[in-house]
């Protein structure tokens, strides 16, 4: 009845446990023919690519089918460099000249971190010198000599704020817009809103640190109340990139092909009496897609295809930078191949394995900055030289910043700070060489043009051509939004 070729792609079942549009998708149930979604879906505009089969049988809709944005996007993709643990803004990009010379002095300053709320503390003077770089003259500390050479392409937001100074909830906030667990992550929203261009690769990729995932693990790239198809796929930068991508050891390509051909015979026979059920044909098609992914994904991660000068650019020739460098280079390769949202973690596990410098700030930040500076600069330069930077939005930052004062009686460790911190963006229709917002003289809190995480998220969606206030998903009786029920505007000052 239905032409298989016409539907071709991966398709999904009708019964979204959440409910994309309440009029129909509100918990539909498992009947496969119940997917008369299209007419209703087109209500949302970006569902216009949904397939309507002929002869009134409604076909499966691949959740990752490319969808039209709400308006012409400036960015095609996002690379989010996540500095897990919380980098210190006043030691990196937020220059606080008045703090120098105050080391050890106790000052009145309100702070809130894992150690609770305090009204005074001992200043830990920024441990590195700052210099101005580029034509834009932006300030960068000695921790980032390579990124410093890219500042003319970067916009700093030095007045970021978040709702929580605790890792658990702050990670969820930065990744999913809310301190409560169970929301879809930013990448899931992008996948949901735009689908994926390359069906042979996941639309949303996450690369983790060698030391382990961030706290809360998979929650950071989960799809929450949306289908699992929208969640991030963990990609390894060495070996087999995706779980279960490689056939078992003793099965060669030819044998597997033979297996798939026989499987096709059985499944086609089964389908013959059930042609109206497009879920069956979707599953048949998926075996072919999976087969293709087995070759396309390894090709994507085959860094040997890159010339030496490129490898060097990312620091692959140095032990310190090779790990993060591989991930950055891989991010570019995936971006080239149509992966829409790529998140790269610097830091994993707990304490000094990430940017969480509670004890020895110098040790911690020299380690993580040194590991990432060259690769990040390499990524920016490489994207630029390929003409990709304009349409690739690069984001740098952690779940919060750090306090100007010491956490303990002794030492240089700083506690968490969600009242003011720095993030930066580059490319993807973001203005270059500027800096917006300010923290106070100590960097303890945002005082001028404070921006919330939701503004950052709104900006990301906006650059991708999605309206953050109309990109909604019906769940739990509410039209849910990434940016919260009250909505949020993108940060206009930084948009070209």
């Amino acid at each position, binding site marked *: 009845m239905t032409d298989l070729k016409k539907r071709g792609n991966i398709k999904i079942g009708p019964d979204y446990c959440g409910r994309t549009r309440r009029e129909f998708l509100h918990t539909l149930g498992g009947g496969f023919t119940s997917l008369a979604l299209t007419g209703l879906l087109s209500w949302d505009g970006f569902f216009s690519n949904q397939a309507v089969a002929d002869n009134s049988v409604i076909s499966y809709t691949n959740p990752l089918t490319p969808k039209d944005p709400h308006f012409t996007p400036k960015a095609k993709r996002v690379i989010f460099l996540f500095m897990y643990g919380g980098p210190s803004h006043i030691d990196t990009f937020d220059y606080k000249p008045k703090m120098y010379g105050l080391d050890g002095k106790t000052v009145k300053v309100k702070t809130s971190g894992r150690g609770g709320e305090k009204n005074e503390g001992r200043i830990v003077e920024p441990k590195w010198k700052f210099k101005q770089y580029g034509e834009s003259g932006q300030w960068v500390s000695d921790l980032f000599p390579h990124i410093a050479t890219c500042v003319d392409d970067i916009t700093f937001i030095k007045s970021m704020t978040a709702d929580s100074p*605790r890792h658990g909830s702050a990670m969820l906030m930065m990744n999913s817009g809310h301190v409560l667990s169970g929301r879809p992550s930013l990448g899931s929203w992008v996948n949901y809103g735009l689908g994926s261009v390359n069906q042979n690769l996941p639309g949303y990729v996450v690369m983790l640190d060698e030391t382990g995932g961030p706290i809360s693990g998979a929650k950071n790239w989960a799809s929450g109340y949306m289908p699992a198809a929208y969640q991030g796929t963990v990609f390894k930068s060495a070996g087999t990139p995706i779980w279960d991508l490689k056939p078992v050891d003793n099965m060669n390509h030819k044998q597997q092909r033979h297996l798939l051909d026989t499987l096709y015979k059985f499944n086609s026979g089964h389908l013959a009496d059930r042609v109206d059920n497009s879920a069956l044909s979707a599953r048949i098609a998926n075996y072919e897609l999976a087969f293709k992914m087995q070759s396309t994904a390894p090709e994507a991660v085959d860094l040997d295809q890159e010339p030496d000068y490129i490898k060097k650019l990312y620091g692959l020739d140095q032990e310190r930078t090779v790990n993060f460098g591989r991930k950055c280079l891989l991010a570019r390769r995936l971006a080239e191949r149509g992966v829409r949202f790529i998140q790269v973690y610097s830091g994993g596990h707990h304490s000094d394995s990430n940017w969480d410098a509670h004890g020895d700030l110098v040790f911690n930040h020299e380690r993580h900055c040194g590991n990432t500076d060259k690769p990040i600069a390499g990524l920016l330069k490489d994207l630029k030289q390929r003409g990709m930077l304009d349409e690739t939005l690069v984001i740098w930052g952690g779940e919060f910043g750090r306090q100007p004062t010491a956490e303990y009686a002794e030492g240089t460790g700083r506690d968490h700070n969600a009242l003011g911190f720095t993030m930066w963006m580059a490319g993807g229709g973001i203005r270059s060489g500027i800096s917006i917002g300010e923290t106070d003289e100590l960097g303890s809190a945002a005082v001028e043009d404070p921006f919330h995480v939701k503004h950052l998220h709104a900006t990301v969606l906006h650059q991708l051509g999605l309206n953050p206030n109309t990109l909604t998903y019906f769940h739990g009786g509410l039209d849910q939004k990434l940016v919260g029920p009250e909505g949020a505007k993108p940060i206009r000052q930084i948009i070209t």
Partner: protein
Amino acid sequence: MRIRKSQIAVFLTISLLLICLATPMLWAEAAYWAYQPVTVPDLPPVKNQEWIKNPIDTFILNRLEEGGLLPATPATKSTLIRRAYYDLIGLPPLPQEVTSFVNDADPMAYSKLLDRLLDSEQYGVKWGRHWLDLVRYAETNGYERDGDKAYAWRYRDYVIDAFNKDKPYDQFIREQLAGDLLDEITPETIVATGYYRLGIWDDEPADRQLARYDYLDDIVSTTGQVMLGISMGCVRCHDHKADPISIKDYYSFLAFFNDITPHSNDSLVDIGTISQKQEYQIKVNQKKMAGEKLQDQIFKMEEVLRTQLRGSISQMSDRLDTDLVDLTYRFYRDTWDQLPNNFDQLRQEAEGQIVSNQFTLRPASRTKAIGLVFEGKLHVPANDDYTFYINSIGGSRLWVDGQKVTELVQAKGGFHQGSVTLMAGYLPVRLEYFNQDEDFPSLQVYWSSSGEKGERRYLSDAFTILPDSRSTGQSWFYTFELPTEDWMKVDFDDSNWETGVGGFGTHDTPGTFVRTVWNTPKIWLRKTFKLDHIPAQVGLHLHHDEDVQVFINGKRVTNRRGYLTSYRTVDLKESALKIGENVIAVNCMQTGGGQYIDVGIFANLMVADLDELLKKHKRQVEASPDLQAQVDLYRKLKKDRDDSRKGKIPYSHMALAVEDIGSSQTYILRRGNPRLQGNPVEPEIPSVLRYSAPRLKLPLEKNQNKVKRRIVAEWIANSENPMTARVMVNRIWQHHFGYGIVKSSNDFGKLGTQPTHLKLLDWLAHEFVNNQWRIKSLHKTIMMSNTYQMSAEANEAALVVDPLNNLFWRFNMRRLTAEEIRDSVLSVSGNLSRKLGGPSVFPELPEEVLATSSQPTRVWGKSPPEEANRRSVYIKVKRSLLVPILNQFDMANTDSTCAVRFMTMVPTQSLTMLNGKFINQQAVTFSERIRQRGGTDLSTQIQFGLRLVLSRQPSTEEITWATEFVEKLMKTEQISKKVALDRFALLALNLNEFIFLD
């Protein structure tokens, strides 16, 4: 936090509760179908009477005939048995079961099959999982630590068991909402209240106040959606935009749950039976006795060794002056109400000498319910009047020279003193002491002559630096308002703080001596005291409820979480004390229940540490084989004792459950903001349901607690509630047919989908309630209908008219759920363990999956194979680590209620089913099973394998395809028959027909 276990008063007289009231204002809104009482609908007319097996068919056929549609042909018997197996137990039938059913000519065969499946304990495994989806079941809290919800699995077992024993649904609801407040409370009903503890919980929220309402919102929205089909997600901040539910309704409904204690790491309730507790107690006692026996031997050995080294001791600089000589002790065990008069008539447990010649509690081999009698001689330097001072927790009595000098017989003890005239010389002295079961022991004794008042000489190895408020209230500076952060510093100005007498707290807190009421969330205390020397060992007498921090001279010396129910002694590693003026500063916080804070400081005089002595006299010891043997024995005893103290006797009769904290007033929070408190509200059901639903008059008086959740439970579980039965029968229907009569099965409101067959819904609801809310009989009724027994065959005409099958003109095919897929694979490979219940299991996960955790090496456990191969409902549900095969095939999101699962088809699923370790391991065992049980001939082996996955006889064509596949592999790829059959097994597990159900 703890509230006294008072009798659970039940104020409910249901007859009193059912008073119908109406307010005309909302009549129009209340006319919406879902709020109308369930009526018994008339059976509609149908033409094709022959098709009707039961009234379900009448309702369905009536609509089909109206739409000019014909019902699909009946399903074949082999389709039907597979459908029934999956729908009732979530597993495939065995080939022989299929054969015998297909060949069974008994007209009752199908009915008997259903009875057998409904009786299977695997039924609860399948249907319990549907309920677990609804109540966002998970076994960890999420967030940074993703801490374990200990004993959450008991709730899972409760649910499975409830389905298996066909617990009436109204009782099922009652137990989960108010199992701790019922007339009859059992361990089972307590476990049921774990319902309230299954959600996410951040143990360090950025905003504690908001977090409390997030928790309550989770309960309100889950209860509303799951049990009532009402969605209240938006009403937390503003009136519902579509349904007649106001923000006042929301907070009034929330008020039913506002007395629940907050989440914590130890919100566990003891559900042990008397014999379980006794058995545990016996084990604990045995362990304790063994330890005490060793401790007594150790003390004696110490004294012996001290005696042996006595000559050297006298030269030790840290040896203490003492006025006592020839001191002996007798040690007693008992529980007394007051100091016994007649120690001499009691039997001591141990006796011996005290070489240090100080009154000391060191001979006590345990800390509770002890008695000690000391006898010796007191060196009186001159004829004079002497005063003796005693400060003890527990009673004490002192005789000198045959005269009773002072006594305090009360169990709680305290400070007492007495004077006596004594002649110079060595006079007999006797001290008696006891403490009760509840207290930690403390004994301090000193004396002074009349001439040197104030010059104390210690007779005990401990003395008080700063008394606590047990016997005499101590004066403190205090404040309830957050002070500046230097409040604990020595030079902090506390002059504008209040002055009050300790202890501070509320009178209903156990084990306290409240003299100043503190009932706010936090208190800060300060006090100054003087010292003329710095004692070596310092400890605190402390009672706190809840978290406390103690600072001495600005330095934090202790930081304890949670609460105590009596005083404790806490040794301090560093005291921060100094000569002259000292400042102690304390702060204590409160989240719910009782509250209390009191602190005192005591000192232990340095007693020459025996290990130090032995070190110093190493040569002397080594020179004497006898002494060396004693030292070796001493060390061995100490090691044995330390070993015996290690490890706890496990007690597992605990449940994740709720308790009430008392009566909380609830307020409307404007825009959902806890800082914008509006009008107070009383517990009340949503107003729109008051006309049609039974109106419950709430017999609530101020401060009357432990009844609110019972009321809401009784209201929901009431047969007249229009929502409860409708919502549940719709869910049962949904899991048989793929979707509900109301497809948005968690939302019966206007934002939900409207029922396709309202009368059928009502008929089912009415049947359900009439059958005592028995779910199994509802299954049977549904499955006996012709509607259920139709095939899934398409019909072109019907597809045009009703492509969504809203009218149920055929059966809906479905993909198996994540659990069904994994369980079926295990079942076919022959590896499935059907064991029920108990703690969750950890199937092996690939390292790359573990690497996504922040603690790759600690995040997951390891179960032996037979445990790892249990049904999927028993796999540990961890919020931060998802089991790939379950996650990929659309298991429920664990952070909010999930009424309908997604059913996605994505290529990564195919990768997992082709290349995954689990599937390949199972394929190898499946292949082994085929080779062992499927005969020797390839064709019979293939038939055997296909029959297992397809639950039917394979066609000749299918056998040929598979045979050619295996043969070709062997021929052209030169692989062994074993490996070729492994491949065939893998192929079979990937068949669409295996994963889909007709």
